[in-house]
């Protein structure tokens, strides 16, 4: 047992670095997913018909494929075709981000569709353009309504990020496996890794709850929107 403890202690700095990589992976993917997700939603809700179709296909594609297949497809096939030598971390971030965008877009869409038509009418009646109305009236409301669904996206991405192991991104799980191959003690080290993931999960959720409380508006957004 003492050997196991010393294995954990000596490898702690290396594992903590891996935790940093995991968090970076999650944060950047969430951001990519957020920005692309909003663009997809706007295309799907307000775009012309062919844009709606394209977004449908995008969402169908990224929600229909396992992470691991997407990672392999992008890492071994699609990125090499471009001729650039793209590092595994970047591939993982792009894949997780684009996939998250598909999910986030459906959360935002649900939120936008739950906003009464009268909000848009009132904005237009004041002389706002369509885009001004979307930006100043619809989106601020939709983003608030999306928060509960969006809060769900963080734990999903966090646990999904471990899949980046299969293309060798040096995140927490990959590093844990590396340490185990040197020192043994698989059970203790894997459980340590699990505890770190669980703590990150709860830490992040608590942070999101605080944000939710901060941006809460009296009497607004009691109707939760989650993706279906």
């Amino acid at each position: 047992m003492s050997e196991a403890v010393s294995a954990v202690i000596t490898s702690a700095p290396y594992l903590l670095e891996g935790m940093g990589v995991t968090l970076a992976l999650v944060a950047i993917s969430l951001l990519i997913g957020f920005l692309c997700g909003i663009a997809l939603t706007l295309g799907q809700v307000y775009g012309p018909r062919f844009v709606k179709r394209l977004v449908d296909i995008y969402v169908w594609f990224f929600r229909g494929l396992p992470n691991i297949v997407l990672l392999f497809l992008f890492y071994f096939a699609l990125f090499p075709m471009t001729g650039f030598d793209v590092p595994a971390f970047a591939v993982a971030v792009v894949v997780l981000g684009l996939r998250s965008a598909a999910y986030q877009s459906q959360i935002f869409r649900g939120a936008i569709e739950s906003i009464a038509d009268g909000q848009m009418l009132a904005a237009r009646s004041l002389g706002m353009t369509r885009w001004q109305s979307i930006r100043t009236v619809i989106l601020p409301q939709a983003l608030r309504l999306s928060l509960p669904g969006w809060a769900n996206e963080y734990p999903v991405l966090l646990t999904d990020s471990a899949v980046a192991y299969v293309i060798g991104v040096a995140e927490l799980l990959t590093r844990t496996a590396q340490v185990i191959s040197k020192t043994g003690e698989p059970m203790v080290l894997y459980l340590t890794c699990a505890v770190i993931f669980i703590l990150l999960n709860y830490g992040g959720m608590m942070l999101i709850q605080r944000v939710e409380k901060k941006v809460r508006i009296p009497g607004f957004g009691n109707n939760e929107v989650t993706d279906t």
Partner: protein
Amino acid sequence: MDAATNLTTNATALSGITDFLSETWAHILAEIPFWQDILLPALWDGLIVTLQLVALTAPFGFLLGLLVAVARVYGVRPVRWAAQLYVIFFRGCPLLLLLFILYFGLPSVGIVLGSFLSALIGFILCNSAYNSEYLRGALQSVKGGQMTAAQALGMTKLQAVRYIVIPQALRKALPGVSNEFIYLIKYSSLAYVVTVIELTGAAKIIASKYFAYFEAFAAVGVFYLVIVTIATLSINRLEKKYAIPGTGAGKGT
């Protein structure tokens, strides 16, 4: 530029295109045996393993999830806590890590499960933890009056839960549980990492062996898209069929 050169340029361009087309065609023809004799048979074999994993996980994942949910809502305090810990651990631990623990970790304490069983148990634990959350929400959303009314008819608490609350809750939890089923199809691909040769594993082996990454992963992608689409459509039908009129569950279309 005079007409003659113009014509020659056109002719060169044209022959360039035909060359390209015939080359591509030859390429496709050359590929056929690879697809027919190697890639597709391997993927078919993998598909069967994937379907086995999914078919075995789904019922156990559901029942275990229901058990955990009932424990969380109706259990005495230590049982509630144990159930909650279960959910926290198996939802918070990445599935891949869970598979590593089962396949690489347990043997070090003397438990050897083998690859298929490791994957299966990992999926069931994960699937049940997520299902239990949907079921818990559904159980809690059944109004207190239902329980009281059942007990007023002389039912015991257990009977009331069994015959009145659970049937209502199941219908409410259906969208979440079926969503989880779709996820299960996709995350069954992780079994490949603990050497179960299911769809993704089969594709990866062929891809590396024949250096045919694009073909293998594009093909396996199509397989998953087809399965997931079929499952999604069937579930939508099921949900429509089992919606209780007037309970507003059929809204999300």
